């Protein structure tokens, strides 16, 4: 597969990662954190919502342990993506470690949906992942630098993250076979938003959701 065809595959991700990366960079600069931290975070963490969460936690001076646990729980969904890549990556060289590192929601979606010849897979996967990461890094650095320079009122830009979660919820809902977990998640989310202490809302709600999903498996699967 030629480089240009691979690039074309990644254009939708580019259109998402550059503005979202910019939103991240802007938020970071708004918190008076130097721009090069945007570069390091996007290069070494490379997780959209995880990096936004890290900023939120930094702002509230969360402990290092809390940052670790919250990031782990938030990104735990990536484990579910990895699960369905295990067999595909099995015969790749050591370079698959980069693919595992770079397995974001969007990269996973591209790798899963693209049609590539078996012997060309490793190379194409590596290019897709690297391109996607470069968009994210470029976007966040531009955002972090322009945030300090441009007199642009970006108050409220963090709503793009809320919107991203809404959009991904709809996409996943359309693909899901069982619809009850969706309703249960709405109830848990509402209760968590209104009732749980703000700083533990995510951990409590996600654990509750996992517990309900596993404990009521029989009821949920029967009622499809």
């Amino acid at each position: 597969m030629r480089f240009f065809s691979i690039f074309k595959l990644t254009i939708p991700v580019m259109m998402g990662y550059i503005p979202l990366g910019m939103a991240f960079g802007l938020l970071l600069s708004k918190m008076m954190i130097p721009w090069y931290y945007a570069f390091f975070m996007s290069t070494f963490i490379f997780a959209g919502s995880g990096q936004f969460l890290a900023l939120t936690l930094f702002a509230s001076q969360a402990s290092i342990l809390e940052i670790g646990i919250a990031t782990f729980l938030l990104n735990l969904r990536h484990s579910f993506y990895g699960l369905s890549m295990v067999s595909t990556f099995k015969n790749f060289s050591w370079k698959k470690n980069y693919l595992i590192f770079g397995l974001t929601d969007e990269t996973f979606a591209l790798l899963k949906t693209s049609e590539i010849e078996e012997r060309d897979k490793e190379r194409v996967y590596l290019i897709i992942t690297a391109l996607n990461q470069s968009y994210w890094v470029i976007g966040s650095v531009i955002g972090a630098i322009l945030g300090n320079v441009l007199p642009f009122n970006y108050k409220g830009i963090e709503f793009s993250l809320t919107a991203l979660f809404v959009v991904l919820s709809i996409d996943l809902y359309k693909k899901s076979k069982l619809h009850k977990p969706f309703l249960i998640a709405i109830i848990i989310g509402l209760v968590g938003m209104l009732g749980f202490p703000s700083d533990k809302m995510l951990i409590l709600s996600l654990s509750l959701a996992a517990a309900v999903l596993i404990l009521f498996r029989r009821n949920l699967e029967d009622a499809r």
Partner: protein
Amino acid sequence: MQDSYLIAGIAVAVFATFLTRAIPFIFFAKRKPSPLIRYIEWNMPLMIMVILVFYALKDVKWNQYPFGIAELIGVSIAILAHVKFNNALLSIIISTATYMFLIQKVFV
């Protein structure tokens, strides 16, 4: 913000994020996933995503002016746009732009 705090925080986030992506490759490289794992794999991502929507809205003050109206309008636009046009980027941009307009110009 202190550099040592930021660096430690970022290092932990790097490790935690990589761990979430590497776990399946550490544990399931050899065996086939059980039906329970399959079931969780299919259903948990949607629940996570829905809860994240509420998580993102957790600091909204629903009982004082403007009662989260801007957030409700923003979320509604994202839902409507996405159901109608099915274009993630478009839905995110129009809902965010509307939200920014509302909190900057309308509910000042």
